[in-house]
């Protein structure tokens, strides 16, 4: 970072959430922001030189916002929240974000993001866990209103009893909103996905909000290496005139039409309008695939999948744990591949069908109880693969995932060794052994 003096807390960590920069009367606090140069997304993502920093996921998000030409950011300090939105507040003080305020709570924040996006400006917010669910009515309406924006979800538990620990159950609620959903594995993904998210969200044939999820604490609070472009460059501004739907700025010919037409009449036309509207939202999700491929290098990444004995499919922090599990398996002489899913919506159905055609065993570790990713994977490859799918191991409620748990499932799946980590009901495909069922029933 360019700051010459870095303040630290008693533990020696840099204090990043300090207030707006001091104004000494001579130095313009916005001077550096004003010098930022607009570059094309292609230059930003593929050509601009990068330097490496060791920062938290929240700081990576802040640095992404610094380079994303954001107009309006709205914050709410829900517990559990990451530092992200207060760090974006620092950017506002420095002039990198043009408008910023602390909202009343998530319902109000998500409504205001909807208002800002309708006004034609680039909007960002972040929330987590209960905040996501509190704001979900608004969030779920953004795609239907065709509102480009980026929201970051730093996943935490949402179930009672009240807690603040990491658990990505909230992703299950976001998957069916009609928004584009990415799942970041680490700090670098956080940085890259947010910036790509703005560009993809505003593409004319997409015009949808993008949700960038990560597993709270593991990514937001922990540090990792992030390769970043120079802070003197930024993405082009949102160009509302090019939008697929008119922005609400009273700069269009007047007509007795509402952009957000209420179609609540009980007749065939009203049903038809709403049905077509939903189809179009999901068609727009499909159209985003080409941009995800272009700017993010694909909806998934595959390592060592061909000729592997087994494949682990994971997203988010589970992908990081799985990478280590693959290494441990190699030490044990097991040839295991890894598929990391970056984009959950759209889901890489075609890619998985191609990759998993000949795979015999698939293990899907997750940081939630319900196993939303295992269900997605099973649905995607049904009929295209005869693989046995082990929907687990799963940890939740704040638990971390020992890599040995994953290795255990790979071994049990491949060798028939007994495991009690995954319920029989979560093992799909392959041949069902009555002995295994009996073993499982005895173990519970």
């Amino acid at each position: 970072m360019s700051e010459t003096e870095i303040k630290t807390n008693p533990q020696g960590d840099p204090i990043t959430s300090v207030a707006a920069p001091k104004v000494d009367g001579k130095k313009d606090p916005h001077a550096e922001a004003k010098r930022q140069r607009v570059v094309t997304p292609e230059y930003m993502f593929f050509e601009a030189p990068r330097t490496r920093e060791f920062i938290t996921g929240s700081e990576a998000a802040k640095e992404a916002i610094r380079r994303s030409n954001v107009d309006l950011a709205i914050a709410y300090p829900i517990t559990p929240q990451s530092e992200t939105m207060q760090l974006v507040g620092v950017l506002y003080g420095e002039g990198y974000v043009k408008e910023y305020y602390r909202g009343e709570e998530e319902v109000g924040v998500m409504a205001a993001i909807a208002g800002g996006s309708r006004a034609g400006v680039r909007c960002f917010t972040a929330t987590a866990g209960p905040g996501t669910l509190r704001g979900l009515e608004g969030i779920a309406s953004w795609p239907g209103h065709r509102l480009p924006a980026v929201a970051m979800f730093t996943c935490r538990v949402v179930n009672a009893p009240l807690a603040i620990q990491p658990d990505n159950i909230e992703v299950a609620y976001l998957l069916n909103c009609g928004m584009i959903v990415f799942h970041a594995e680490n700090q670098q993904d956080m940085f890259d996905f947010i910036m790509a998210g703005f560009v993809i969200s505003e593409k004319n044939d997409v015009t949808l909000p993008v949700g960038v999820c990560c597993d709270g604490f593991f990514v937001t609070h922990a540090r990792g290496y992030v390769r970043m472009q120079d802070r003197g460059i930024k993405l082009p501004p949102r160009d509302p005139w090019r939008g697929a739907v008119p922005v609400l700025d009273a700069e269009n010919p007047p007509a007795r039409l509402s952009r957000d037409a209420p179609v609540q009449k009980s007749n065939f036309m009203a049903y038809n309008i709403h049905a077509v509207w939903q189809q179009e939202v999901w068609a727009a999700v499909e159209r985003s695939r080409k941009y995800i491929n272009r700017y993010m290098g694909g909806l998934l990444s595959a390592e060592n999948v061909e000729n592997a004995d087994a494949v682990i499919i994971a997203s988010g922090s589970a992908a990081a744990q799985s990478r280590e599990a693959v290494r441990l398996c190699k030490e044990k002489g097991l040839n295991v591949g890894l598929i990391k899913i970056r984009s959950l919506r759209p889901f890489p159905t075609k890619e998985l069908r191609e990759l998993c055609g000949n795979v015999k065993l698939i293990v899907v570790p997750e940081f939630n109880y319900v196993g939303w990713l295992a269900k997605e994977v099973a649905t995607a490859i049904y009929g295209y693969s005869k693989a046995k799918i082990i929907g687990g191991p799963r940890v939740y409620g704040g638990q971390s995932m020992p890599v040995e748990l994953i290795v255990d499932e790979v071994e049990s799946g491949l060798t028939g060794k007994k495991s009690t980590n995954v319920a029989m009901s979560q093992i799909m495909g392959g041949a069902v052994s009555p002995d295994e069922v009996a073993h499982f029933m005895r173990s519970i």
Partner: protein
Amino acid sequence: MSLDYVKFSNGFEKFMPKEYRDMVEHGPFGRKVTVSQMGSFKEVLEEHPMCAGCAMTLFIRLAMIAFPNPEDTITVGTAGCGRLAISQAAIPFVYGNYGDQNGVASGLSRGLRLRFGDKPKDVVVMAGDGGTADIGLQQVLHSWFRKERFTTIMLDNEVYGNTGGQESGMTNKGAVLKMAPLGKKFEKMDMVQLAKVAGCAYVATVVPNNPRRVESVIKKAVLVAREIGPSYIQAYTSCNIEYAIPTDKVMEDAKAVENDRYQFMEYVSEEAKQYLTERYGYKEFLAKQAAPAASISGKA
């Protein structure tokens, strides 16, 4: 809005619907119209699906005539009867989620200021008593506390009309309605007082049977919200269906309610008074000795 948008492209006049031609040739865009000229110009709101005798519709028509710059105004609403008419007007209308109108308007007005700077882009929220005082109360109050610069208008029919006549916070104590089978058990919410406490720079109550007064308060509220701070108008707009008011007695009812609980009230902050006087020539706020005997409000 550039008024060029309102004109026809050369050669297209004859292909445009009569409705649209009338809007271009006789509409209110780019010129001043008043409620006393009703009938002599094309209104932005004419056809609508509201009930016969609906006072709310009359109020919305009057309010839209009073907008100082209809060509640069965006309305925001929520579920309720009002949006059935507001969404038919030739003014962009945002229909978001239940009770989120003041949150949406906060983001919208800030976004428009970022894009258009000092050029007026008036954001006007029009929502019912349920949307404003019940489900939307938190966002309404916080938008006022934050001094968001847009106008909030409550269309107060003292009932959830669109959903079939349930009690709202603005219903009078004792009124028997759905969900209040024994009569409402608490007082009508004092939103006017809340608006003052929360920092609105302009607050007024009004009934629709005095069109010039409606015009006057709407104009002032929108102008104050442009630069000074939030403004709030609470309008009695009876529901003749749920309160069983005969169609030809709607105005009589409005008069009776005005005398009972809707006396005209106007609160203008000192800053707003100075602004209206200096910027828009309002003389009514000048010190008594300097004011002429019969000052006329409504100039904008």
